[in-house]
């Protein structure tokens, strides 16, 4: 499953860059309860209680920054497993600035495997898309400083 989007905020490009590359900051845009542990600048891991309504389970996740071209381009791969299932996300960002306005162009390839993709597929069909969009919407609001 592929999702993408763009948004423009009044924040500076450097601010947007630091937001997305700092786990403490970007993880605050995640709605589901989660923990985060920083191994080094490019490696983080933790847990997340993800799901919708009562269909919810705990995943252990680990992330690695695969590409880092400050302050314009970055790519991160996130792998999570739990509930007899697994998710693999490759998220990429392109940040540009014109006249004090910063535009963030994002794309996310999400692959689900195991029970949530098989037996649970019918139940979680639209959820992945909503969660991805919600994350970047939260990020936009935070950057907007609203």
């Amino acid at each position, binding site marked *: 499953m592929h999702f993408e989007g763009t948004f423009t905020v009044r924040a500076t490009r450097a601010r947007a860059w630091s937001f997305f590359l700092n786990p403490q900051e970007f993880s605050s845009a995640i709605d589901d309860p989660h923990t985060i542990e920083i191994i080094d600048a490019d490696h983080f891991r933790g847990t997340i209680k993800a799901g919708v309504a009562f269909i919810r389970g705990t995943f*252990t996740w680990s992330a690695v920054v695969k590409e880092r071209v400050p302050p314009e381009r970055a790519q991160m791969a996130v792998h999570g*497993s739990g509930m*007899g*299932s*697994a998710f*693999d996300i490759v998220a990429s960002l392109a940040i540009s600035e014109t006249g004090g306005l910063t535009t963030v162009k994002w794309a996310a390839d999400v*692959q*689900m*495997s*195991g*029970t949530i*993709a*098989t*037996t649970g*597929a*019918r139940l979680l069909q639209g959820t992945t898309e909503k969660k991805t969009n919600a994350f970047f919407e939260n990020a936009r609001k935070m950057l907007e400083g609203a």
Partner: protein
Amino acid sequence: MTVHGGIGQSVKRKEDARFVRGKGNYVDDVKLPGMLYLDIVRSPYAHARIRYINIEKALKVPGVLAVIRGKDLEAANLAWMPTLMSDKQMVLPVERVMYQSQEVAAVVADSRYAAADGVAAVEVEYEPLPVVVDPKKALEPDAPILRPDRKEQTNRIWHWEVGDRAGTEKALKESDVVVHEDLYLPRIHVSSIETCGCVASFDAMGKLTVWMTTQAPHAIRTVFALVAGLPEQKIRIISPDIGGGFGGKVPVYPGYVLAVVAALKTGHPVKWIEDRSENIQADSFARDYHISADIGATKDGKLTALRVKTIADHGYTDAAANPSKFPAGLFHIVTGSYPFEKAHVEVDGVYTNKPPGGIAYRCSFRVTEAAFTIERIVDSLARKLGMDPAEFRMKNFIPPEAFPFKSALGWEYDSGNYGAALRKAMDIIDYDALRKEQGEKRKRGDLMGIGISSFTEIVGAGPSHTFDILGLKMFDSCEIRIHPTGKAIARFGTKSQGQGHETTYAQILAEELGISSDDIAIEEGDTDTAPYGLGTYASRSTPTAGAAASIAARKIREKAQKIAAHLLEVSPDDLEWKDHKFQVKGVPDKAKTMAEIAFAAYTNHPPGMEAGLEAVDYYDPPNLTYPFGSYICVVDIDKDTGEVKIRRFVAVDDCGTIINPMIVEGQIHGGLTMGLAPALLEEIHYDENGNILGGSFMDYLLPTAVETPKWETAKTTTPSPHHPIGAKGVGESATVGAPAAIVNAVVDALAHLGVTHIDIPITPWKVWKILHEQGAA
């Protein structure tokens, strides 16, 4: 004068007494003191490298006692095991998982619930690898090699062909009319209502007993002995009551081996019972054949040649349950009921990231795939020639006088009368009236279809000169022992999974020995007591073990005749076996019944003869048997939604001599329903990541009593010339013959729109799409 419960009588079943009281004894009913439970961690990925399996958390879960991983088995050289087709299958992976829901680790705990908690606590780190799910893509040059352990670096497992390639090409070129169809038979799953499982237990002296859902207990015992290096006399396999098999309980599944290893390590009995989702997602599948067929005929509708090319998707290893010399099973019965001069079949087995297998689903060895191909493409050809499909078949059937008939692909059909069966089906359903009704309906724009399938099956594997599994010849056996009071017990090398052997075998013996079938106990499935046999699948029980019963009984009669002569003080030659007793020829009231003879065998046996009255026979069938039938199906289609409804289905079957008409009819009802299921409902989908979509009964829909029509059955009787009582197998005929009849009916209903084929399952939206595109919806 008939004996009670002899051949041909619809006696009620012996098995029912315990089943209707809930006193059946299935594997999950086995409870042993100190028994532990094993549950399995499964891969969410269809292809991935295993980096690390972390079991600390799992070992802390209350009740969890042990976790088995691939490297534990590797140490005992048990990480891999042979498949029935001599390929290699993982018990647990050490390096890579090859299909989604593959076994990755096993948790042993003191309760079923704790074991499940343990499974949830095992953490496995994977590194996903590229996935191949389409066998055609797997054969492309740049496809990832799934089995680097094999000599040739390719995803092709084997190439197999039979028949006259050049002659067939030539005959097709010279044919006035040639029709081509591409048919895909999707992956489906037997889904017997009981899933697989076992209880493994070592006694104090190191003897292993395994209660197991297996259709072939003896073969399993020998494979365990060879693979695990256990002395075969210290292994006992017990198949208790089995809740349906249909071929799905022939393979050796990793869960069985894991339970044995766990029992060995813990010193406790260990039970493993899989959930339904595990059963559907991980156990052996059926079908998944990509078939491309060409058929030729003269312009006046005489068949000339048949060419079939097939790609067989086997998953990551060839774990099919076929006789070893036939990687594509008996698919080359594909010439069916027609006397093709020229025919050629080739099949390529291919690896993909899917579970291993290729088992029957109630269809012998790839015989449904064959019958579906020929009865579908014969229909297309008839339609192209503008001939009525019934008339076309009648014109081309192998005539009765041609039997025994040698087919172009090397089979010798024992007996058949195809025209009589089709004629009977047409009369019962009033074929001509249906065609008239269809004409009127079509004028009003209503959609009605009539479909025919006149299949020939090939069952009863098989002659030991050609048929073996892992070298074990495919004979089967019966051992009879008659007690002093004239009662008897008989044991067999086969294993019923609902076919009623305890009743039908007793009827054969009652007929042969003159003892009421109520007085004959039948046992199967315990390798410590039953004579060696290759088990029950591919409708082989009656043709092999049923024959062994007759022959063993006749051996007993030879001895009984001498005892009777001794009792009647005559010479054995003065006696004849008539009205189920030995009579002095011409003096019928001077006779001895088998009961009297049996008593004498222990109390007054002739001098120089050993006491007792027993015999055993290992029957090597001289040929397979070829049951056949003609089915006619009538469907109505809802123009708005595309839904297909079966209005009537008449099935005329011929399986030679019938032992119990009630039981045969039951087999046909069940078989037809397992023909309807793949035709309209069942399919296992895979997305491009190898995720199984439809991996539970929530999405993999079996037919209920509402979708299943009120089947109408009838029979003709053409005995097998080489079987002691003329019987052929029947358990799978209806599953083999029905799909083509249903699809032919749907295509018939839409033929005026130019439709020649629709791949199964025929879902409402496939039909709607055709109607929509033709502006008829």
